[in-house]
């Protein structure tokens, strides 16, 4: 007589990295932030870092809520200031792996100055930016990445200011790793985040995301799936393109890929080398 053996219920590998008691999350149905978070956690799991030594720092906005859902030391800071908070955290305890996870408005508009300066210093942090083309938490206003002609609540007749090209900005400011994917490219996204996490120095991954409730609704992407299908059909993978060729237009081709992967001394390495030399010179 055979005994029925119940199959153990498989545990989702991402669960141990999430504060499951905080679920359901605040993000809208069809939002791409969950996809980005999922890819990040899978990359983190594969990277094999000691979870106790990984910190997530977020700013304000929809993506800024990521810090509240990860079961890691996590910091939800003031608007735009995730990167300088992360800078202090890293310099105080260099053994920590620090990931800044925030949105385009937080990182590039109000926090834009910190973004370029941390890249220029080659601060040893990974920055993951979910770019959904608008300020979603506050109701869908235009932001630093809104394409020309796109409609938002504060650009009801279409935006007319040129958007930032984030990979180009990161590269020219001094980042050592730059990649961009859409929420459709989950495997590539995970791979790039993994590479970014393993990279020493300022690594940057832009994740282009749908925002069905606010951006999509106003711009003829009627739901999350529609926008993701559009990403699928209109994305072109290019490695190492000319940065100015990767501008994002309104309903135009989106160039994705790994754009940059170089070596440069990090801020901490440069500081420690200099201090060490001075101490030796002075015999201290």
């Amino acid at each position: 007589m055979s005994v029925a053996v119940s199959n153990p219920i498989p545990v989702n590998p991402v669960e141990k990295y999430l504060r499951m008691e905080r679920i359901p999350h605040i993000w809208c149905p069809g939002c791409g932030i969950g996809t980005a978070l999922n890819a990040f956690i899978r990359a983190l799991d594969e990277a094999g870092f000691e979870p106790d030594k990984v910190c997530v720092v977020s700013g304000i906005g929809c993506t800024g809520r990521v810090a509240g859902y990860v079961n890691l030391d996590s910091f939800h800071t003031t608007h735009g200031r995730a990167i300088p908070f992360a800078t202090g955290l890293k310099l105080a305890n260099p053994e920590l792996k620090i990931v800044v996870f925030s949105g385009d408005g937080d990182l590039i508009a109000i926090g834009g100055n910190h973004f370029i300066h941390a890249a220029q210093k080659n601060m040893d942090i990974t920055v993951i930016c979910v770019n959904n083309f608008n300020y979603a938490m506050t109701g869908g206003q235009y932001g630093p990445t809104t394409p020309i002609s796109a409609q938002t609540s504060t650009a009801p007749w279409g935006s007319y200011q040129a958007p930032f090209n984030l990979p180009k900005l990161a590269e020219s400011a001094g980042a050592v790793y730059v990649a961009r994917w859409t929420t459709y490219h989950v495997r590539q996204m995970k791979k790039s985040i993994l590479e970014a996490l393993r990279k020493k120095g300022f690594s940057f991954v832009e994740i282009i995301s749908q925002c069905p409730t606010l951006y999509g609704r106003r711009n003829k992407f009627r739901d999350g799936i529609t926008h993701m299908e559009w990403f699928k059909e209109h994305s072109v993978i290019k490695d190492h393109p000319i940065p100015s060729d990767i501008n994002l237009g309104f309903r135009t081709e989106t160039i994705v890929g790994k754009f940059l992967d170089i070596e440069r001394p990090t801020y901490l390495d440069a500081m420690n080398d200099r201090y060490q030399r001075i101490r030796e010179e002075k015999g201290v």
Partner: protein
Amino acid sequence: MKPDPKTVLTGTHFLKGNDAVCEGAISAGCNFVAGYPITPSTDIIERISKRFPFTGGTFIQMEDELSSSIAVSGAVWGGAKAMTVTSGPGFSLMMENIGYAAMTETPCVFVDVQRGGPSTGLPTLPGQADMMQARWGSHGDYQIIALCPESPQECYDLTIKAFNLSEEYRVPVLLMTDECVGHMSERVVIPPADEIELSPRRYTTLPPSEFHLFRPGKDLVPDMIKAGDGYHVHVSGLTHDEHGRPVITPECQDALVRRLVNKIRQNEPKIRMVEEDIPDDSDVILVSYGISSRIVFLVRELARKEGIKAGIIRPIVVWPFPEEVFRKAAKKSRPFVVVEMNMGQIVYEVERCAAGQAKTYLVPHAGGTVHNPEDILKIIREAVK
């Protein structure tokens, strides 16, 4: 807890107030400073940048005061003792992150070497017009602690005190100096390391399963952890419960904000530092703090020559305000003459505590130099008439 003797410059020195702040910070165990150059505070970060490679500290010059003020919070959660240094315009930019440090109960020190304002004002000349900004500058309800040194020696002593208070109450502490105190050179005695008492960070002894990041002790102050210790905490500027989880309700807001305010109010008698010298036969009580009090001590001698006897109250800890001291002094109905380098800030606190029992006079000054003793004497004569 004692500082590392290798970092303490024990001995008698001739130091500027700003240099004394730097040495006080190092003696207090400060090992992280983020700053942005601004007159008249810059010489503090200049000295820090020179000293830190030999004391084990990390100095970083940030892109602005917004980033400096939040990098300090980041460093503290990474386990550092951290400070930032600025003056008026930079202090204005730091307000948001003073609020963040208050909300997240991050022990840290902000130094404001006050200059004349508003706006760019008098970059190279003194003022004391940031006192209310220190108290109320960030939005929302919260409490901070603010100290006002009147000499380079006090710059040294009170910087250590500022770090200690920040650790004891898990609160940002503001050291409110000014251009005069910052740039005057005087004798500063730095004691041996074993005579300096430091308050350790209140790290929890509980295991992660029993620890709540914002569960207060009897003194309303919760214990802390640092990132990387395996506690997997969440720190947020949102209204949060004892676990640190965002809870957007009036009930949670009430419990949190009341505690943030009461942990300082309730402990005010312990935090209080006041220099008080009020002879029984005083005709008037002179009230002053920081650099202005140096003039007031001189004016007291001048008044005596005219037959006017003056007592003095000098709050050293200005926030929380030592209300009890002023209420008690007001009982005998002697007038208060408040001398401050602004158009009237602390005078309102004095007037409030006097509660109609004693008249309150202000000797206003828009800044740029200390008071002319004669201007103070004029008001004293009027007050005792």
